[in-house]
């Protein structure tokens, strides 16, 4: 009985956070399938240790660490393919579902942000982490996390301003 309860718990937690977690992982890996692998591994390890989602900063830190490991492992292949990619403009699956052109432009602008600003933005907006949690994930101060978030919003504002 207790076992079933735990199952339901993880399912509801996972369904709630999976889209945001995937978006977080997609910042480092180009393919959605690779991001899913990373999220699966991180979530399963996290859930086995914690059995709740209270300390979610650890989960995001695990996803980030696995994604960076993946990038390191894959870097040699990526270097080989880099030249071809640049020429062929490889298709990258979109990270968001769009309703209109404005949203498309906004998503494109998010992609243009520097990595350190984008990861804070993704954790804050689509994963609803607090600055304290974001600071813990990234190993930075709370103030730095907040200022990166602000810089990200300012950069988006600049990019979206009509010329």
């Amino acid at each position: 009985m207790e076992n079933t309860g735990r199952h339901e718990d993880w399912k509801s937690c996972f369904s709630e956070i999976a889209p945001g977690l995937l978006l977080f992982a997609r910042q480092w890996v180009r393919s959605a399938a690779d991001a899913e692998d990373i999220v699966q591994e991180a979530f399963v390890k996290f859930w086995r240790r914690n059995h709740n989602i209270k300390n979610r900063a650890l989960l995001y830190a695990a996803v980030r660490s696995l994604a960076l490991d993946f990038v390191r492992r894959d870097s040699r292949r990526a270097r080989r393919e880099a030249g071809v990619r640049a020429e062929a403009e490889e298709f990258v699956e979109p990270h968001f579902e769009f309703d209109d052109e404005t949203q498309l432009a906004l998503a494109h602008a998010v992609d243009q942000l520097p990595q350190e600003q984008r990861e804070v933005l993704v954790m804050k907006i689509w994963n609803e982490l607090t600055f304290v949690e974001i600071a813990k994930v990234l190993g930075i101060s709370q103030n730095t996390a907040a200022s990166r978030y602000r810089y990200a919003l300012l950069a988006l504002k600049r990019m979206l301003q009509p010329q």
Partner: protein
Amino acid sequence: MRDLSEIENELRKLRPKQPSPILLERVAEAIGGRDAQAASAGRPSAAPHVFRNWLSLGAGLAAAAILLLLTLMGMGDGKRFVNEVSSISPGRETERALAARGERRSMAESTLRHRFIPAGATRVVYDARDEGLQFVAGSAQPLRRLRYQVQQTLQWRDPATGASIRVSYPSEEILLLPVSGQ
């Protein structure tokens, strides 16, 4: 002029892509399998390391006992024992035992369940060399000879388990292009 809170609101309206339905199944399999094991062992899954330590201790003791037994047999009637063991065909014995228990079919089914489907293919040309014009015997038209060094990568994926296989190999291709004079 857009306010920052206005941008925040617009960002919140953007919906991240939903994960594939297979992901939930994979996580369920990984988490559910582990919980089921813990439940059947009658131990809480929160302390698996204790169980694992006892298991390894037990396995170690069993291995030591078997070694001791074999040593003792080798000292006495070892030759007869070795002959008996080598006369048994393990493959046939296993098949017979499985057939008797009706497990052959389930073994075949479990093998079939793990199916890999093609998940991607890349072809990277990392070197291209123009080797100049050539006249092949019997041909009046010159041919341009191009040599490519290629790295091909193929990937398969098992949607049920998330396991993937990646095969990467180099190859060399020579292309002969007819050149027409103006």
